[in-house]
């Protein structure tokens, strides 16, 4: 008997290989090699008309199938993200009209890059390849997964979308190494990322909303002394390299070169001074009993949420949505619980400013798959333009009047808790409309605030969005964007995953160690982190930064 031992990888690879070998037999799969032949045919199909935009759309002679990715956030109690009322609505309103079959492909939000890479490797790439983080979008381009975008054609087919990119200053970001590689959805400001604090506990110890770090720690110590909580703060294992907590420790005004080198969503800046100071503070907090001793076992934040709901802890940050389960759950357990938005000043020591990350003007970054045929790309551009039309977007974002929403006196939609057939997917269909815009925009800050109150806040908690808005406006001037390289930093994609798992390990060990061991450990981990690729990234960024300044 001859037996070759079981290779760990063979299954995965076999699946990939055979999938790509069989892809040609699949009836529905978007064929990856037909671009040349269909390019010739496409001259007879849509978009030969001289009229730009949606008025010039014609149905394709032969049905074109496009595959559109959609995030699956694994939210209980909602219909499947790739097959629900709204995906069918897109098909019936848009697809059937132009002989396009729109297929949605579910991408697990927490494992999106792996999933997307698998699809690309198997030759089954969706026609849009997207990601929120610019470095990852660049990584897709570097892999050859994206085609260069013919901006003249895009402008012809999708003038509304194009104009948005022009008006909001997005166009310059679409170029990579001098070529048009991306189109991007615009991003109106949202005020629903909030850090909540238990106002009833603040009252219980007779204190007020803290205005600086020493007041904050005094409050937390009082909670512990009074036995209100098991541990006052929530913390879980970091899942990205985004180190949000180091902003207050950064020098203000920020030094552009430092920002370019260290400030980033994908690679944690372990060796940067502000990160050192942040970790040092967190280490002190951990040793004072502010966090759960097991926080690092919480890989997806679910334990943190459960602790907040159970009243074990009193501070919790998350996106607020109209059906936030952590608000309803908390009230079920503690009917007397009162919530407030934690002041952004509470974490600041003397001389620090409430700095933070400012968004770029764009939201979702879209690339067109290099496996798409010319017709498929056109169909995708038509979909983007169609979704950018005011009426279509309004319905996709708000549903139907009298069911999903009612109109207020100013003609703005007020979202209702509607559970019928036409109910919205997660967060008002955000994962569908994110292709063209990241939120709802009705022209002015005031209007948007009104709409966000009913879109993002549970009933009776509209004041949270108000407070969040107020704090945002106060601190807006201290927000800085990350530096955006117009050239791809190849080492980022190569070392990203390795450095993330090292960041998870090292940050946890640094936070949970004894205070007197901190500095020795930090030194040791920093060296290893630099050796594992961070130094290469820093060198490449520095060279690119200096080149861009010439």
């Amino acid at each position, binding site marked *: 008997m001859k037996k070759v031992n079981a*290779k760990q990888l*063979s299954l995965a*690879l076999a699946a990939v290989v055979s999938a790509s070998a069989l892809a040609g037999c699949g009836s529905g799969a978007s064929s990856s090699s037909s671009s040349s032949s269909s390019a010739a045919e496409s001259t007879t199909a849509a978009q030969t008309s001289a009229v730009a935009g949606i008025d010039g759309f014609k149905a394709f002679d032969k049905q074109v199938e496009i595959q559109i990715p959609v995030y699956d956030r694994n939210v209980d109690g909602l219909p499947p993200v790739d097959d629900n009322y709204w995906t069918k609505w897109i098909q019936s309103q848009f697809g059937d009209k132009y002989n396009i079959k729109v297929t949605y492909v579910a991408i697990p939000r927490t494992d999106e*890059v792996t999933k997307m890479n698998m699809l690309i490797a198997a030759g089954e790439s969706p026609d849009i390849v997207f990601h929120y983080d610019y470095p990852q979008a660049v990584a897709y381009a570097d892999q050859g997964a994206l085609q260069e975008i013919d901006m003249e054609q895009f402008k012809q087919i999708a003038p509304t979308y194009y104009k948005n990119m022009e008006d909001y200053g997005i166009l310059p970001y679409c170029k990579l190494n001098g070529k048009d590689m991306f189109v991007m959805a615009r991003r109106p400001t949202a005020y629903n990322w909030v850090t909540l604090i238990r106002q009833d506990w603040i009252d219980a110890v007779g204190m007020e909303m803290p205005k600086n770090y020493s007041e904050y720690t005094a409050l937390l110590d009082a909670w512990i002394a009074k036995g209100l909580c098991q541990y006052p703060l929530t913390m879980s294992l970091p899942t990205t390299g985004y180190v949000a907590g180091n902003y207050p420790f950064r020098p203000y005004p920020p030094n552009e070169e430092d920002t370019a080198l260290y400030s980033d969503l994908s690679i944690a800046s372990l060796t940067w001074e502000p990160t050192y100071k942040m970790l040092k503070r967190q280490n002190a907090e951990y040793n004072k009993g502010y966090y759960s001793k097991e926080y690092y076992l919480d890989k997806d934040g679910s334990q943190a949420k459960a602790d907040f709901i159970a009243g074990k802890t009193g501070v919790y940050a998350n996106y607020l949505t109209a059906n936030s389960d952590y608000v309803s759950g908390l009230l079920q357990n503690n009917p007397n619980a009162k919530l407030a938005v934690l002041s952004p000043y509470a974490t600041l020591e003397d001389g620090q400013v409430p700095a933070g990350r400012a968004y770029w003007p764009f939201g979702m970054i879209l690339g067109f798959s290099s496996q798409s045929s010319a017709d498929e790309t056109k169909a995708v551009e038509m979909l983007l333009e169609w979704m950018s039309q005011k009426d279509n977007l309004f319905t996709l974002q708000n549903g139907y009047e009298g069911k999903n929403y009612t109109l207020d006196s100013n003609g703005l939609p007020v979202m209702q808790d509607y559970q019928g057939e036409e109910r919205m997917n997660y967060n008002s269909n955000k994962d569908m409309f994110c292709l063209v815009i990241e939120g709802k925009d009705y022209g002015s800050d005031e209007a948007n605030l009104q709409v966000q109150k009913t879109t993002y806040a549970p009933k009776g908690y509209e004041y949270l969005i108000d407070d969040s808005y107020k704090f945002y406006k106060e601190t807006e001037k201290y927000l800085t964007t990350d530096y955006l390289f117009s050239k791809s930093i190849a080492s980022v994609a190569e070392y990203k995953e390795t450095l993330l798992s090292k960041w998870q390990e090292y940050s946890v060990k640094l936070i949970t160690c004894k205070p007197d061991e901190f500095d020795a450990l930090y030194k040791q981990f920093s060296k290893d982190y630099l050796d594992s690729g961070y130094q290469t990234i820093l060198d490449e960024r520095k060279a690119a930064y200096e080149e861009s300044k010439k």
Partner: protein
Amino acid sequence: MANGKQTSLSPFLKSWKNSLKRDWQLYLLLLLPVAMVIIFKYASYPGLRIAFLDYKPALGYDGSKFIGFGTFQKIFKDADFLKALKNTVIFNFADLIVGFPMPIILAILLNEIHFKRFKKVSQTILYLPHFLSWVIVASIFTQLLKPETGLVNILITNLGGQSVHFLTEKYHWAVSYIVIAVWQGMGWGTIIYLAAITGINGELYEAATIDGAGRFGKIWHVTLPGIKGTIVTLLIMNLGRMMGSSFERLYSFDNVMVTDFQYQLSIYIYEKGLQAGNFSMATAVGLFQSLVGLILVIASDRFAKLLGEDGLM
């Protein structure tokens, strides 16, 4: 004419034809597993060439650049790879030392039970864990063994002890990791040995009894020599897995406190190869594992033959 053709068939083909006619049902049964092996093992062989390419999925096999052993050179210089390799070898060796004898001991113990019903019940209970996937096993043990909120540690602290970091301190983790695997696999492992024991001629036991052998004497002089061939065969097959590492098992017992030990080849492949989309690297490491496994199997087979055993090949 037909007759003339018949006689010109080679004797080999003729006998093959005959046995096919006689045992076609058995061959039919064989078809499915053979197809499995061909599709999932051999059909992926052409894909192995991506270990020698700078493979970009979007460019395909032909579009990617050939770089020869470049990927391998890079891997062997990578400190993380060396760490993963070291952990893999150490843990597989520990698994072998601790895990391999357990089913043999257990099979002999079960064999000595004469109360039939008790034997059946014990066997079933021992098999059960094998049918739980690692994800389930790991989540149960992780919950039970959590340092602060796990049932076991609550019990220990309430009895006045210190909480033990079974799965969150690397040395404790190493022991728990291996012991849990023994618990999960030993019952299932007894099946082959029990079958081998059944095959031992009963007269040997009678003869041993007449010669005055007690229970242990019979185990030592009859049962163990009787299943020696099986033990050697299984040992060789296990040695072939020395380079392997179960991704499912490692990944489900993962937490940042034990990365020093838990970081083994399958995790390395997953992190650097699949998550980062570097398929060349993943394939190269997989190929390396397979080659070392093959060499180990052949070497141990030769060694077994030197000792006068049958071996595998």
